[in-house]
């Protein structure tokens, strides 16, 4: 009995898109999108700038509405399930001079649960725990403007975690950060993936292959690939031009290629 319900839970579709079509005024951004994301998935949304990655995330949040087609998150229209979603927007949109502390930002994740925006002790505990999860516990009192790019990303992820989400949506979490920081970030996401579904948008495909389970390729159309299938041919299709794939399972030395 118990196993059955667990199995049911495992196969539950977190996100379902059926024949979704979206256009800003007259320019088509997404057409004929069919997509299902299962619980526990770690999906990377890749594609060129302006290909529709952020639009796809905003559709899932109910910030934008499809012109036609059906869209469900946790089996309901997205507006009704927003509370179960933790969202990290692109960090370039933030004013770095804004006078706000790390803790204040993370607590914003609790706003939906407060009356008139007053935070309880429990809210603060959840915020502290979220900061611990992204290894930022010691920086709660720091000013947002004093942080590095990678730290700001992690604060915004902590804010999304503070919503106690079942689905985590991240828009370009790796933009403008160092490769080492990026790797650390993926370690964090990998451990979070044990208890929540993750979808993240990124414009580079190279590195995701390691921890990501499937890749959603977005450039007007949407195609899903398991990570192992991602070949040069597919990437060429997504980007519409000749690009080289970087293989991360591969080391170069002065003598030649180790893995060949």
């Amino acid at each position, binding site marked *: 009995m118990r196993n059955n319900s667990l199995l049911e839970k495992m196969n539950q579709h977190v996100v379902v898109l059926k024949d979704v079509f979206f256009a800003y005024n007259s320019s088509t951004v997404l057409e004929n999108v069919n997509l299902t994301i299962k619980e526990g998935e770690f999906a990377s949304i890749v594609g060129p700038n302006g290909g529709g990655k952020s639009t796809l995330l905003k559709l899932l*949040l109910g*910030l934008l509405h499809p012109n036609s087609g059906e869209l469900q998150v946790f089996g309901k229209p997205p507006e009704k399930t*927003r*509370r179960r*979603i933790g*969202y990290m*927007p692109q960090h370039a949109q*933030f*004013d770095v*001079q*804004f*006078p*706000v*502390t790390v803790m*204040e*930002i993370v*607590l*914003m*994740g*609790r*706003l*939906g649960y*407060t009356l*008139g*925006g*007053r*935070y309880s002790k429990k809210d603060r505990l959840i915020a502290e725990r979220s900061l611990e999860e992204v290894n930022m516990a010691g920086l709660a009192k720091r*000013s947002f*403007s004093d942080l590095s790019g990678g730290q700001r990303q992690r604060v915004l992820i902590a*804010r999304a975690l503070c*919503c106690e989400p079942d689905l985590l949506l991240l828009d370009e979490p790796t933009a403008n950060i160092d490769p080492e920081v990026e790797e650390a970030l993926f370690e964090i996401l990998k451990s979070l993936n044990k208890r929540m579904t993750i979808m993240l948008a990124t414009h580079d495909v190279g590195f995701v292959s390691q921890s990501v389970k499937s890749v959603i390729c977005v450039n007007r159309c949407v195609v899903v690939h398991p990570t192992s299938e991602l070949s040069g041919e597919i990437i060429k299709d997504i980007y519409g031009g000749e690009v080289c794939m970087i293989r991360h399972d591969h080391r170069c030395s002065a003598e030649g290629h180790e893995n060949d």
Partner: protein
Amino acid sequence: MIEFVNAFFDPDNAFLRIAIYVATLSSISFGIIGTYVVTRRISYLAGAISHCVFGGIGAGLYIQKEVGISWFEPMYGAVISAIMAAIIIGLVSLYARQREDTVIGALWAVGMAAGLIFVDLTPGYFDITSYLFGDILLISMKDLWMVVFLDVLVVAVSIYFYNILLAVCFDQEFAGLRGVYSGAFYILLLCLTSLTIVLLVRVVGIVMVIALLTLPAAVAGQFSRRLWQMMVLAVIFCMIFNWTGLALSYSLNLSSGPTIIIIAGITYIAVISFSRIFHRIKQKSS
């Protein structure tokens, strides 16, 4: 300066005392609302609202003198037009993102033009420069009470909704996703901004009101790590600018509004330059 202090206590100079009280008390609203305007980056919207206020003043004059409703003072027209402008501009910036700047630019100029047309249509001569550039001689006891009322309202709203307004200014979209009526709070903020502008038009005038709204907050922002710190400092800076501006304009026989703005502007440039130099030195030494 001593001359100014003597003038302040001179029983014949009641107007100067009222001006000082209004300048001091209005700094509370100005510092707090100015902080929101600067951090939410809506000084352009505030500029449009202040020019729409002139349309309301013109309409008020017309209604009072030409239509003959004598109790309808220009200030009532100003309040109505300011609130209307705040709501329209708020809705435009929420829902018409692509053409936002065009619409707001148009409202800016149309508001001003409507005011001038109304003044033309009203018989008699009116010195509109006092509305455009401020005139402390026009400030009455009634203005003082209105400023007190506005201060209480602004302080109450910004304390009660501190966390929500912080979230709406920092990331409105996210606040909305968490179930906050972020659009409504944004328009509330614009309405408070418009009321603040109306009351302060007396001191510095429509054209310069934006500077007195943003400069104290911008200076305060250089020294603040929290939003409330920025508000407190902005209030203090606004008071200092008003006092020194009024004192200087009185002793040098200059217009008070422009003097206040020049002092605020010079302070802002000085603070920005010093903080740049300070950061350079700090970077080099570390």
